[in-house]
């Protein structure tokens, strides 16, 4: 190695240490040990300094991959049941409102509404504009999720009540978040109001997408998240065969078929209710 070897070694070590912050805490130690071990061998192979650094830079996508997948694994189980989902949203709402109340300028903004022109008007206007925009910007696959004719009236009512509860719990967050952004981050009041309006619209769009997408991934009967996605068929052979993904309800209520793309004979997702004869398969859970 070159005379810069100690500097390169130190730089690579620091890079690995900094990158490890993206890895979840429970996996960080093992991840760092593996990369340090590998780096030891790279340094021992008399490779060029830039190759050592290039090797260490490879840790960045690796750490991001682990971080992203751990997040996915960590979030979804907590929101599996409708109660867990609503509890999570309620916690977020309480945290958002508490933060808004904790900041003096935001508190003043909300409670001085009678004097200054209420922020609620901005909020309601932004929500109204978002609702008008929604049909135009909603992705096709989410739009299909809004069609509920194929569900029984009980399932439909239960689903809409759950959607309503999610929206209700998201509203305080949608109100307080943009007010905090507008009053704390913006330099002037006018800019703060504009920022607040656009943040409300963006947040409301994101919330709408999430609410519908989350609903699509739930069993219409028990409202638990559907699991065990299984790919069926091939896109190139969809002439008379189903091509898409099948999800199953862990309680054994049914199977959801989601086509990859709409065909004339299978243009939207279908729910197949499983009767009691299938229950023995679900007694001990599914792997």
């Amino acid at each position, binding site marked *: 190695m070159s005379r810069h070897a100690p500097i390169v070694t130190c730089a690579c070590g620091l890079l690995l240490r900094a990158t490890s912050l993206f890895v979840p805490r429970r996996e960080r130690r*093992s991840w760092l040990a593996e990369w340090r*071990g*590998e780096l030891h*061998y790279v340094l021992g192979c008399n490779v060029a300094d830039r190759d050592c650094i290039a*090797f260490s830079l490879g*840790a*960045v*996508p690796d750490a991001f991959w*682990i971080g992203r997948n751990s997040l996915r694994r960590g979030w979804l189980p907590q929101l599996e049941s409708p109660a867990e989902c609503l509890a999570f949203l309620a916690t977020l709402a309480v945290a958002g409102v508490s933060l808004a109340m904790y900041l003096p300028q935001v508190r003043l903004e909300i409670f001085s509404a009678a004097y200054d022109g209420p922020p609620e008007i901005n909020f309601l206007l932004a929500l109204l504009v978002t609702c008008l925009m929604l049909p135009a910007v909603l992705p096709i696959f989410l739009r299909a999720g809004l069609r509920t004719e194929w569900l029984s009236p009980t399932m439909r009512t239960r689903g809409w009540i759950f959607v309503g509860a999610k929206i209700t719990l998201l509203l305080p967050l949608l109100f307080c978040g943009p007010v905090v952004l507008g009053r704390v981050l913006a330099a002037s009041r006018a800019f703060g109001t504009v920022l607040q309006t656009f943040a409300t619209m963006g947040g409301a769009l994101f919330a709408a997408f999430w609410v519908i997408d989350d609903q699509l991934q739930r069993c219409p009967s028990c409202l638990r998240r559907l699991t065990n996605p299984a790919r069926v068929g091939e896109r190139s052979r969809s002439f008379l065969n189903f091509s898409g993904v099948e999800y199953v309800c862990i309680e054994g209520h049914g199977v959801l078929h989601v086509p990859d793309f709409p065909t004339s004979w299978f243009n939207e997702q279908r729910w197949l209710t499983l009767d009691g004869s299938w229950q023995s398969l679900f007694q001990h859970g599914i792997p």
Partner: protein
Amino acid sequence: MTGMATEAKLSHTAALILQAVDSGCRYGFSIMEATGFPSGTVYPAMRRLERDALIVSRWERQSIADAEGRPPRKYYKVTTDGKAILAAARKRYPLLAKLMPDAQVERA
């Protein structure tokens, strides 16, 4: 599981890495040397293969590494499902075995 696993498709990169592990490259750096892929490709691909239970990893015993005066290594091995998938991948990518001749592989 094995029957279902053989139907799954691997990308060429993942298949080459799986082939390298099966050929005897047991740790990340040796897979990089054998395949020519950069570390930013090899390690995330190995995480995916491990998540899909196509390979398993185990840490080398600390005493062995201490005796040789080096840090312990994490070794990878192809699982039964991984072998089934690899067999299907070899049919799909006939040049896979030729791209990874045994001579290149360090039998660690």
